[in-house]
């Protein structure tokens, strides 16, 4: 566990008697100490989350100390997803501050804000529960900007008197933001989707597709085995792998460099090039196999890329809906016809 458990605000009186009951109720807020430095265990946890090995790693909701905060120290709000919390406390290195962790069911700030769990109600409830107005004298809370889709700053203000100030998108800009008197530059307010952002998403993309890829390989293998038992199966499996690599690895990496705005078209194009290159390289001449592969595999990559909209940081619901309406019929058509052609090729060895 990342926290040194339960350091109470004031030492609890152990004597019994009427006064202690009184004292205990006013001191029943558990304040936990945390550190700004991330240890090896934290980095290991992050790696596991990135690789999609574990998805949930929760921090207990509540209030935490970084350093030695007092009644004038700043209050930062976080989600109880361990990576959100760790990035925040790491960004506060050298500061004395409070972190108030909301219960977002172990989900990161942005996703939780979209669902509303990182939201106005939870924020108001947590401010009341931890008795924030008794912990600090001021009336300012710093909420990550990516929490804004769930939080209505003026509603929180009305209900609690605490003024919500939206901090920068990235925790590493927090110090500059604070030092500049809560002013964020345009860059600090913008969500990017640069190469690193895209690359870290690849493992989860691969993990998602893995079981379907294995199922498809086995399906082709058996069709071939009980059919012509030809060498075409090798080509089919290699092209299947190419299609998956195109959809899960190449499309995320090449995303901004490929023409078209629709994700499925980007994936289709990348995969089509890869498949055509393989057909030429392997010298495939079977008309069924060639035609089937040109239809099936790029369409498969198109579908995988379409799913990458969810991981991207800039697609809108209306846009994705339009893209799906427009291209899913083609994808399904291509997949079906392509599959039939490849099956004929494998069954009859032509």
């Amino acid at each position, binding site marked *: 566990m990342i926290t040194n458990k339960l350091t109470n605000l004031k030492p609890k009186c152990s004597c019994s008697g009427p006064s202690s009951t009184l004292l205990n109720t006013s001191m029943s807020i558990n304040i936990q100490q945390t550190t700004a430095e991330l240890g090896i265990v934290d980095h290991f946890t992050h790696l596991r989350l990135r690789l999609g090995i574990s998805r949930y790693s929760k921090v207990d909701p509540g209030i935490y100390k970084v350093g030695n905060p007092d009644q004038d120290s700043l209050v930062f709000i976080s989600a109880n997803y361990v990576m959100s919390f760790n990035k925040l406390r790491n960004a506060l290195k050298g500061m004395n501050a409070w972190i108030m962790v909301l219960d977002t069911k172990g989900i*990161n700030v942005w*996703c939780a804000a*979209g669902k509303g769990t990182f939201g*106005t109600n939870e924020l108001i409830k947590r401010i009341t529960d931890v008795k924030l107005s008794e912990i600090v004298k001021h009336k300012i809370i710093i909420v990550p900007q990516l929490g804004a889709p769930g939080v209505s700053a003026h509603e929180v203000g009305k209900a609690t008197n605490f003024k919500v100030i939206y901090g920068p998108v990235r925790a590493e800009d927090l110090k500059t933001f604070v030092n500049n008197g809560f002013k964020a530059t345009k860059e600090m*307010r913008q*969500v990017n989707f640069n190469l690193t952002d895209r690359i870290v998403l690849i493992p989860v993309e691969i993990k998602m597709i893995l079981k379907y890829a294995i199922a498809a390989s086995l399906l082709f293998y058996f069709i071939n085995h009980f059919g012509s038992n030809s060498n075409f199966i090798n080509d089919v499996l290699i092209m299947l792998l190419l299609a998956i690599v195109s959809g899960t690895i190449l499309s995320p990496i090449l995303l*901004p460099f490929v023409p078209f705005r629709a994700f499925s078209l980007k994936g289709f194009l990348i995969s089509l090039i890869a498949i055509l290159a393989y057909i030429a390289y392997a010298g495939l001449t079977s008309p069924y196999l060639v035609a089937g592969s040109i239809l099936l595999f790029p369409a498969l990559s198109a579908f995988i890329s379409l799913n990458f909209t969810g991981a991207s940081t800039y*697609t809108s*619901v209306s846009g994705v809906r339009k893209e*799906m309406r427009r291209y899913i019929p083609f994808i399904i058509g291509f997949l079906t016809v392509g599959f039939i052609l490849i099956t004929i090729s494998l069954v009859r060895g032509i």
Partner: protein
Amino acid sequence: MNNLYLKNIVTLKLDKEACVKCGMCINVCPHEVFELKNSKLEMINRDRCMECGACQINCPVGAISVKAGVGCAYAMIKGALTGTEPSCGCGDGDSGCC
């Protein structure tokens, strides 16, 4: 980098008459959609809007309307198949969303 998605499709609407130019929408928008130009609020990058809804919920006078949701195909397919409102798959531990 300027990532752009489909043109002219988002549901974002701004009521300039109602706007009191508090700047909140500029603060919360992750894609620099709004800008104060000559003391007027303008949508300078409307096509970059991802319909996250942050501006709408944080506008104190309700001058912005947008149909917010998650731009995730996986969520929509799942929503269509299960007959529920599309929601990000984060909750079921099995998706690339977020």
